[in-house]
């Protein structure tokens, strides 16, 4: 069974704080993704990575950065959290062809 885990289920941070969200997968997948999910807007891709140290911007990368130093781990970084980054953050991984496996999500609130 594929397992994707995320470091926190719920997180509350203050405006201006640096926030790290971590994702780990145990299936040796090449690709990893970070999405945010908001009511009425659906799932939107922030960043993805197709190999260690390789990353590409998704549809809404502004205000975020990522790090992939090891194949199993993909981190999302909010350099200076803002209230409009309050959201559900979902990590996913996939092998070569499209079927993505999601983690349980992190609900981040920025106050």
């Amino acid at each position: 069974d594929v397992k994707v885990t995320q470091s926190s289920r719920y997180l509350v941070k203050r405006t201006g704080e640096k926030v790290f969200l971590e994702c780990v997968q145990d299936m040796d997948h090449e690709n990893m993704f970070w999405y945010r999910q908001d009511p009425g807007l659906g799932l939107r891709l922030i960043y993805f990575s197709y190999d260690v140290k390789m990353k590409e911007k998704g549809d809404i990368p502004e205000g975020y950065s990522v790090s992939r130093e090891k194949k199993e781990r993909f981190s999302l970084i909010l350099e200076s959290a803002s209230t409009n980054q309050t959201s559900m953050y979902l990590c996913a991984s996939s092998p070569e062809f499209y079927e993505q496996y999601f983690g349980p999500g992190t609900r981040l609130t920025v106050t």
Partner: protein
Amino acid sequence: EDKVVQSPLSLVVHEGDTVTLNCSYEVTNFRSLLWYKQEKKAPTFLFMLTSSGIEKKSGRLSSILDKKELFSILNITATQTGDSAVYLCAVPKSRSTLTFGKGTMLLVSP
């Protein structure tokens, strides 16, 4: 730009009813279409339909792909309260990324 549109946005049915969820798409280079079910947390994979596999079935759930008319439907027969969820449709964009529709929220009442 690739586009995925799902309808209806939400749906309420009674247990035992049959429901049909729709997904239309516009993509530059079609490869496949995927359906996911999202309950309280992470989306879970249901089906992938491709040019060579335009019909899939698993228990009470089935899905077909119409490549000519550019849509897919997800059918659920004899619905149960456990089918209540958001159903997401997605198509690959590039480099293994997916474009998701906004989802259909299904509520099955007892």
